[in-house]
């Protein structure tokens, strides 16, 4: 079954890179793109994706706020954050906002495919860089 993915990031270049990576997988389809949280909410309503790949820091409405709205609006949608913020605290906030996955952009090429696979099966997937772990103690 095809997994339908909506890609949300305020940088078109990043969206292009994510799309190139995701579309390498034969059963996945990028059904749309959005450049901020408000547009992500609108497009989720129109396109009904299975998974949303979502940035945190965006203009107009950031990813965390969008995630909270989407949790109410689209309960079946799984949200995977792909973000610059290599921070356990941000990851905790993202999961509390209703995301199922959290991956750091610097490792997106390595982690994204496994993350999408996991969240599409309703499993949690998180991956930070090792250096950030000591902040947990």
């Amino acid at each position, binding site marked *: 079954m095809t997994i339908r993915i909506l890609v949300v990031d305020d*940088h*078109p270049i990043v969206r292009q*890179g*994510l799309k190139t990576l995701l579309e390498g997988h034969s059963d996945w389809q990028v059904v749309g793109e959005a450049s901020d949280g408000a547009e992500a909410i609108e497009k989720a309503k129109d396109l009904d994706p299975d998974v949303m790949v979502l940035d945190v*820091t965006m203009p107009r409405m950031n990813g965390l706020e969008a995630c909270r709205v989407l949790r109410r609006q689209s309960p079946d949608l799984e949200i995977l954050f792909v973000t610059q*913020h290599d921070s356990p605290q941000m990851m905790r906030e993202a999961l509390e906002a209703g995301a199922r996955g959290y991956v750091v952009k610097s490792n997106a*090429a390595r982690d994204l495919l496994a993350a999408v696979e996991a969240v599409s099966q309703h499993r949690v997937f998180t991956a930070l860089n090792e250096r950030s772990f000591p902040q947990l103690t």
Partner: protein
Amino acid sequence: MHMKLRILLADDHEIVRRGLRALLEKHEGWEVCGEASDGREAVEKALQLNPDVVIVDIGMPNLNGLDTTRQLLQHDPHFKVIVLTITDSDQVIREALDAGARGFVLKSDAARDLVSAVEALQNKRMFFTPRVNDLVLAGFLEKGQTVPRNEAPKLPTLTAREREITQLLAEGNSSKEVASLLNLSTKTVETHRSNIMRKLSFHSIRDLVVYAIKNNLIQIELPPPPKTPAGPTAA
């Protein structure tokens, strides 16, 4: 037979490099001849591959984009460098121009501007965002001056090596790790570190990190503001 224009991409995010590659390779006659994930690798690959154009992200670890540009042009002034940045502050623009970049593009506008930037450099022209043109009009670049007299830097200047070490320390590397990255002894790094702290009158690594951010040795993306609790609703 027309030779393809060869482009080297340097950005620490593979996702961004993929996006840039997809954008640039749509252009017939251009090819991405190599990629680098930090400034040091960018300099090595540029010297090996001799690209026509080098696109460097400002905010790369180990060696940032501005220092990468300086090193490239020290090796060979014919390298043509386009700097990609998340910010177009006056200071960043001045530093990019001082470093010798021939193109300056905001990452958020890269999908729109980067192709034009590469085309400009291909035709031996420069490419900058409109804000840079405003600075030129304001006379900041008259007679080779890139800093107006009344805004002369207040802090002592660090040497190129000291800047490299400042960046690596601000990124969280220990002196031993810095020594390993730069092929120096730990003792040499410690000496540089003491000199840097003394020159800048700093007392802690935190001071160094703040300095590195303010002076674009490292770039950070700020997290969104914390969620504010809902206030009482009006009756």
